[in-house]
């Protein structure tokens, strides 16, 4: 039986495929800048926003967006002032998740609801929520397309980009906003604690196979979306948590790509050695 015959599975499929497809677009730039864990941290901080939203009766997505944007701005300011060391970042991120749980508990949010926010609950999405995720995903794609040359220049070398005339401060700000959008889009589908994996793992897999940045982006997006489809199917048949199944599928794709990449490199070296003239 095709699991996607059910409407709740169709909603989950659209939401997860879109989220997992756009997350690596942003992830490629943060990986290249050596900030692979920033998405994880932003997810922690967004949880504080969710807790606050539960407490005041607001929309959790808005709370998550507001908190992650504020945390992003704070991190940029701290980085510019030379204060964004490991310890300071850890304090903000762990403070976020602790505050999120405290506020959620005060608001009387049930454990099921919290688990859904942290690890995703794509099977419970309404079409309205799916549309909202689609809008957020479209915003990420549009920003990536418009800013692509400047994002690549920034990711390659920030100082060289600045001397090329790129307004690096503004592009860093835009990138931070894009991370927040992905975190918020992923909150209901893959979960605040797992969405960061979809920013990084498909990129790591694609980097094994592609030979250009553009190729890495396209391949990573395809790996992310395919992992969502495969992960949801596995979750349906084996009754696993969908968010976990999607992330584990992406990790399996990375391992396969790493193996294929290593094999291809070995083959290339072997060919070079065979074609070299004998001494």
């Amino acid at each position: 039986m095709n699991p996607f015959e059910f409407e709740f599975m169709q909603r989950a499929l659209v939401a997860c495929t879109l989220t997992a497809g756009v997350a690596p677009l942003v992830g490629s730039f943060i990986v290249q800048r050596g900030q692979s864990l920033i998405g994880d941290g932003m997810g922690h901080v967004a949880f504080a926003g969710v807790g606050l939203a539960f407490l005041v009766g607001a929309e959790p997505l808005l709370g998550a967006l507001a908190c992650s944007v504020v945390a992003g701005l704070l991190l940029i300011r701290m980085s510019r002032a030379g204060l964004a060391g490991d310890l300071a970042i850890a304090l903000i991120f762990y403070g976020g998740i602790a505050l999120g749980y405290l506020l959620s508990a005060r608001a009387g949010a049930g454990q099921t609801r919290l688990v859904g926010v942290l690890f995703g609950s794509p099977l419970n999405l309404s079409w309205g929520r799916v549309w909202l995720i689609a809008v957020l995903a479209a915003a990420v794609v549009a920003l990536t397309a418009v800013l692509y040359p400047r994002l690549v220049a920034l990711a390659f070398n920030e100082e060289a980009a600045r001397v090329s005339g790129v307004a690096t401060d503004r592009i860093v700000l835009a990138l931070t906003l894009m991370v927040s959008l992905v975190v918020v889009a992923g909150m209901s589908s893959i979960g605040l604690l797992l969405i960061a994996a979809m920013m990084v793992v498909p990129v790591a897999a694609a980097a094994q196979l592609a030979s250009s940045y553009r190729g890495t982006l396209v391949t990573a997006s395809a790996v992310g979306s395919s992992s969502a489809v495969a992960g949801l199917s596995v979750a349906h048949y084996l009754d696993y948590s969908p968010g976990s199944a999607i992330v584990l599928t992406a990790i399996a794709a990375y391992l396969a790509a790493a193996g294929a990449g290593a094999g291809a490199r070995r083959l290339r070296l072997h060919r070079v050695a065979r074609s070299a003239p004998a001494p």
Partner: protein
Amino acid sequence: MPAPRPVLELDAVTFAYGAVAVVRDVSLSVHKGECVAVVGPNGAGKTTILRLSLGLLRPDRGSVRLFGVATGSFRQWWQLGYVPQRAVASSALPLSVEEVVRSGLAGTRRAVRRGSATRERLEHVLDLMGLADVRRRRVSEVSGGQQQRALIARALVTAPQLLVLDEPTTGVDAAARAVLRQSLEHLVRVEGMAVVYVSHDPGAFTGLADRVLAVDDGQLVDVSAPVAPAAVRHAAAT
């Protein structure tokens, strides 16, 4: 007839990291068609002078002007080409040689970036730097010399009038260094570009620079030929 305007001008520039003065009262003028080498040991302040020249640092005292404009107000970035140290080519993700070169256009407007003149310029710099055959290869997988030439091509893609290079010979073997020297000589002598490079190696591109300036105790000392070799060695050793 008025004297030609310098493309780069440092006037009595002083800069300190906290209480440590790294650059003291440095003045320098570089004109079109001139090649200037700034040499000295690691930690002497060469890179600080370079970063001040590019507007990446603000001087505590004195002024820096690019093409007659204070660096704080300078906006004609296409006139300036910057070649960072080759270590930046060790990218975490695959970047093709052509993508590295193209990233030099990121600060230009979309219409310029997509214009036919820019496409021709891109082909020209890839040919000039001998990279046409490796343009689709990962930059991290080509030789050290090719990586360095990719970074220079990146800086040249906007047709700048001033090229600034940071340690261009680091990790580049003798043969590749000779090719680089030839390319830079072409840019200075044929295309009339101003070139400034900083290097810890006083022997980098021997004979190319019109002026060799050694960084000594935060100040620039002109050690150009005929006394250059001994004086440069002395400055580099201190």
